């Protein structure tokens, strides 16, 4: 499929650990669907996400619209992909709406009339979409953790990226804000966009993602719908824990972690 994201033979890492992920092939991630990347610490989840975002050097092919995303310029990539980091920096004396406007003004991209008035309208549209218009004039450093994450989400979607990448969007959020963020993520995918996110909590992944990619030691350990791939054996090999995998209503899967697995 043309407008799907297809990863082939992708290797990426950092100067001291050049191959955190090795020759990964996975996909296609299609518009309208949410894919979760899960796996133990240091499995390469964030590395995979960051290499798709173009934040770290990578080798291989990331196919989208008959192009290898890895070969696009920063600017062109920024027109297609948006990456939402885990945290917003502290101590920033910007109002929420100013931060959104800077996101729009920072680099030119398709069909944007960059006049201040229209930029302002777009910024408020994004706030409305996320449901936080009332926060528009709050300084970023006065926000609660949940509010910050919603603002960060608004920053991520304001340029209408076709591919949205999120690094642990719900870490350190209370239940209400977890659901709020996940609902926004689902809605964004439903509008015809590709969403890939790293999640730590396996049950959040089974609840909110269509497909799950399980990473283990820089390789794909499993890929598919939660019901199809999540088995106690998988959790033994990847996470070294004993689990009970239970199918609840609507075929949804829930994972109960029982104990450490010592073989």
């Amino acid at each position, binding site marked *: 499929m043309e407008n799907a994201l297809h990863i082939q033979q992708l290797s990426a890492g950092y100067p001291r650990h050049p191959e955190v992920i090795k020759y990964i092939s996975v996909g296609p991630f299609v518009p309208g669907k949410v894919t979760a990347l899960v796996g133990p610490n240091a499995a390469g989840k964030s590395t995979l996400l960051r290499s798709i975002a173009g*934040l770290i050097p990578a080798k291989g092919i990331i196919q989208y619209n008959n192009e290898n995303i890895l070969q696009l310029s920063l600017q062109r990539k920024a027109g297609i992909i948006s*990456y939402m980091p885990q945290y917003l920096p502290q101590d920033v004396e*910007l109002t929420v709406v100013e*931060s959104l406007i800077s996101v729009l003004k920072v680099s030119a991209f398709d069909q944007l009339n960059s006049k201040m008035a229209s930029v302002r309208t777009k910024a408020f549209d994004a*706030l409305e979409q996320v449901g936080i218009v009332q926060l*528009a004039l709050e300084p970023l450093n006065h926000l609660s953790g949940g509010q910050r994450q919603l603002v960060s989400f608004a920053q991520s979607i304001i340029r209408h990226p076709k591919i949205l990448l999120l690094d642990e969007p719900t870490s350190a959020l209370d239940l209400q804000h977890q659901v709020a963020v996940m609902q926004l993520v689902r809605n964004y995918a439903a509008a015809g966009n590709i969403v890939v996110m790293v999640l730590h909590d396996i049950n959040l992944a089974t609840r909110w993602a269509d497909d799950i990619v399980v990473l283990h030691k820089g390789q794909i350990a499993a890929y598919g719908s939660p019901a199809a791939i999540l088995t106690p054996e998988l959790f033994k090999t990847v996470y070294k824990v004993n689990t009970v995998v239970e199918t609840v209503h609507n075929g949804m899967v829930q994972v109960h972690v029982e104990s450490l697995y010592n073989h």
Partner: protein
Amino acid sequence: MIQQTNISHSEVRKLAELSFDRLQKKRGLILIILALIALLSFCFDIALGPSSLPIKDVILGLFNSNAVEDGTHVIMWKIRMPSAVMAVLVGMALSLAGAEMQTILNNPLASPFTLGVSGAATLGAALAIVLGISIPGINRNWIVSVNAFVFAFGSVLLLQALAKWRGASVNVLVLFGIALVFTFNALVALMHYIATPEALQQVVFWSMGSLGRSNWEKVQLLAIVLAVIIPFSLATSWKMTALRLGEDRAAGFGINVSRLRFASLFRISILAATAVAFVGTIGFIGLVGPHIARMLVGEDHRYWFPASILTGAVVMSLASIASKMLIPGVLLPVGIVTALVGVPVFIYLIVKKGRRS
């Protein structure tokens, strides 16, 4: 019921949009007021000193030199003006350099002084004064300034090399800057130790930071540097603002962060090195100026950079006035005044940062 929430939603939005417009206007207004305050403090800087001039004459004399007596004219243009203009320019340069540094290093404690740029300049000056090192082809009168410039520039390059070094977090960079300060201080002390009494006096006086060495030639040079650099700084406003949202974020928006940082460090080194080379160690302006500006207009760099430039000018003019008025009849080195004002602000910033994190 549903309709009612819809109406109130759009009302909330309209209200927020209006207050945003008002906020923008208010920030523009603050810039204008700051500019007026800068002009006013500049006039007072000219008026005050041994044999004070009436402020009315100063303002008249600025616009029409024939309107005032010859004596007033001479005091204004020959004696007071070079150092008053120098104060304004140095304040602008150091404050803008500090603001840029704080954004690219993501740290409100960063400034040319706290990261060792001034210390490096002092070492450069001390080497020139004590050892008489001379660069071929450079006029003897300029050796001290040129040497100070070269060292200050070098210290920023050193910081830059560290910034490029993978794994060096921004906090490490700030600590590295502090280590540089200590190193340069030790080497300057060594220079003190081996200097002749005359050279020692010269070095010590230089390192205290003074506007007294100003002349029109130096003023002109610094003005040109500012005129060239400021437009480039302002042109990066949006990118710098977006960088405040985080490095990954900024890169994701298509900003080449390392190029942005490199260009900024280059501007910082030129601004700071030129200013310090002419007036010696004047500390904390690069810290206090941006801090006041941040409190006034926030960190939308379209406002914050100009505001920092203006607050820098105001603070330096006031410091220059204070250096003349604190002890009647004695002209204190202005660096002492800025340090006395700057240290409390520095401590406040540390405490505030510590509480947040």
